[in-house]
């Protein structure tokens, strides 16, 4: 084992010490707990006020949460051994969580504003599929300690492999070709692959992440109003709005509400974009890791080992595609694609210009061809199935309304108006047909599909660990087959929809040479 003199890390001793969170966390935990319990506390306070001792209950609640925070600090400790990382926590039920170090896939460092004020971070160690909510999470290390831990956990293998520890050659990364990268930050040898430009905020409104905000706010208000027995009608502004709406004709009222919602979603989405992705920066470190940092208030830094990278996904939601944007997601083993704007920490590039997304994806793959290669379409029969499926689903609405008109005397214009969905469905189907395709480009299997969210996957051929060829009875009649490549990375399986049977076997044979040979008949 070599000693990485640069950052002063010695390989951990045989019997490592149990380490504690920073005592500064004593100031953060209670506040955090109080904030988390705020809705409950508010409710307790409001509900208690009517019975006369709300203040007392509120105080009691605060004391309990503060006490829990202190207890958490006092009972949490961790250590990094030669083979294992261990976290010990719990007061009544003492638990020791051990994770083999070679299972560590990602290290996430986040810091919300209060953390940042005190120079603290929260570190989350990802081990892939068996991730539980609590996982290995240490809330409240000093920033320096957090960084040290990250390097310790992820770069051990690389540090052993690298003979010269002080390689500051600048732009040479272990992964291979780095095109168009800007050399920066001299201290650890790294190459910046992308950094956010203010112009990208323009894509914010088109992410529609504001819809989620509306949902959350509405849910919170509803709960508060419900549990604390507050009548929203009592609030002046709300009453004025509903009064105004009831005076104008229905059409205009609907228009006004729609406009208000639209503006709110756009603003909330933009704010959400800025808060989540401000200062985004993706870099490749010459220890064989990809490093992402971002965040305006809460900062987040994610590190992925490149040896676990199995490809890249380029995704273009319809609205974003309309304005020429795209985002980029990593396909890595042990890293499931999550939900939400951050995709569970697999996001390589937030919504940005398409050309930029393609450049970043190409840099990460080390090969630009999978992103630009011409795809083989799946032909007429696949197209027919796209149209059939879209129209079948779309026909349900007018048919249902017609049935209600016939049986239950609903207005006769409703099914006619509902016929509008048919051309919309046809347009979506046409777009899906245009998207559908596959190719094999160098070391990657490339698949593209989808309309509402169009995705292009470039999956490393050596990352494919099995095939699944599936045919429904209708597909058998149409002579097409869904070819699914299974993998341990990302979404776990990537499908080629409705490939003509004659095309399907050559694709599999080319992607994984030799695997099919014993099972082939030629003729």
């Amino acid at each position, binding site marked *: 084992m070599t000693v990485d003199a640069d950052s002063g890390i010695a390989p951990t001793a045989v019997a490592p010490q149990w380490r504690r969170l920073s005592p500064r966390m004593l100031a953060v935990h209670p506040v955090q707990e109080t904030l988390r319990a705020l809705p409950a506390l508010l409710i307790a306070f409001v509900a208690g006020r009517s019975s006369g001792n709300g203040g007392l209950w509120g105080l009691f609640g605060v004391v309990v949460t503060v006490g829990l925070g202190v207890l958490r600090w006092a009972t949490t400790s961790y250590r990094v051994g030669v083979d294992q990382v261990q976290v010990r926590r719990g007061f009544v039920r003492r638990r020791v969580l051990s994770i083999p170090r070679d299972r560590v896939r990602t290290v996430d460092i986040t810091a919300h504003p209060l953390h940042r004020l005190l120079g603290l971070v929260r570190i989350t160690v990802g081990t892939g599929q068996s991730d539980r909510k609590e996982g290995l999470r240490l809330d409240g290390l000093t920033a320096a300690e957090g960084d040290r831990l990250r390097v310790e956990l992820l770069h051990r293998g690389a540090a052993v492999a690298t003979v010269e520890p002080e390689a500051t050659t600048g732009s040479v990364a272990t992964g291979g070709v780095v095109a168009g990268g800007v050399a920066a930050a001299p201290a650890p040898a790294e190459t910046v692959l992308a950094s956010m430009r203010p112009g990208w905020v323009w894509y914010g409104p088109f992410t529609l992440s504001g819809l989620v905000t509306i949902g959350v706010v509405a849910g919170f208000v509803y709960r508060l109003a419900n549990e604390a027995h507050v009548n929203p009608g009592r609030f002046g502004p709300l009453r004025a709005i509903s009064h105004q709406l009831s005076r104008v004709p229905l059409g205009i009222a609907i228009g006004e509400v729609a406009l208000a919602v639209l503006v709110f979603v756009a603003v909330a989405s933009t704010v959400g974009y800025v808060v989540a992705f401000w200062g985004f920066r993706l870099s490749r470190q010459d220890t064989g890791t990809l490093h992402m940092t971002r965040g305006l208030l809460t900062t987040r830094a994610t590190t992925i080992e490149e040896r676990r990278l199995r490809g890249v996904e380029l995704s273009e939601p319809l609205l974003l595609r309309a304005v020429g944007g795209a985002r980029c997601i990593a396909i890595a083993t042990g890293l499931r694609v999550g939900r939400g704007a951050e995709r569970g920490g697999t996001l390589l590039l937030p919504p940005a210009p398409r050309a930029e997304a393609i450049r970043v994806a190409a840099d990460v793959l080390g090969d630009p061809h999978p992103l630009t290669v011409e795809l083989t379409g799946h032909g007429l029969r696949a197209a027919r199935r796209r149209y059939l499926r879209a129209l079948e689903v779309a026909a349900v609405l007018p048919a249902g309304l017609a049935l209600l008109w016939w049986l239950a005397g609903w207005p006769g214009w409703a099914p006619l108006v509902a016929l509008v969905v048919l051309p919309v469905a046809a347009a979506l189907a046409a777009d899906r047909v245009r998207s559908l395709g596959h190719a094999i480009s160098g070391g990657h299997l490339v698949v593209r599909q989808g309309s509402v969210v169009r995705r292009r996957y470039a999956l490393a051929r050596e990352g494919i660990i099995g095939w*699944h*060829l*599936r*045919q429904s009875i209708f597909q*058998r009649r149409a002579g097409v087959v869904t070819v699914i490549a299974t*993998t341990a*990375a990302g979404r776990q399986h990537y499908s080629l929809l409705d490939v003509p049977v004659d095309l399907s076997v050559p694709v599999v044979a080319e992607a994984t040479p030799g695997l099919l040979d014993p*099972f082939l008949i*030629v003729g």
Partner: protein
Amino acid sequence: MTSDGGTIDGGTTDGGTTDGGTADGGTADGEAASVMRLRPPRHRVSRRAIWYWTVRAAVGWLVPLAAQVVWLLSDLSNPAPHVLWLVVTVLVAAVHVVVMPQWRFRVHRWETTAEAVYTQAGWLNQSRRIAPVSRIQTVDTARGPIEQLFGLTNVTVTTASAAGPLKIDGLDHETAQRLVDELTTTTQAHPGDAT
């Protein structure tokens, strides 16, 4: 084609290449002369699996039938529609119970070589799965209560992908045991974490 190094040979009923007319992937209209095609796996599962599938389907149908009988008994004043539905259910169930197991038996096949495991399953919807032996993580066997009745065993081969277990239903015990032994031996020859 002769990579039969570690193939289990016909422990099951008919080991030969019975190129069943079933499921040869799509409408076979050989336009081009040199089209690559995938042949079905070599081995069939145990013939007793037909009975297993029959019993399993029949048991499954008992639930809706029982519900309908109860419904009928609780509303004897107007039995006609209930009886009609009951008859329809019985007919559908009968067709399913008779046709499905035969169809399945023609489809379900499996094969292993030194390099890969290849399975075919389903009836209305059919699927073929192929996994390289080098990527196998675990090989499990399981016997449900009905399967034990017919002396059958399931073998499940998993890879590191959550989307990719290969299941071979309805093998007889000896074949299953030999398959597991063989796979564990060949898998051990491949180091690495198979991702």
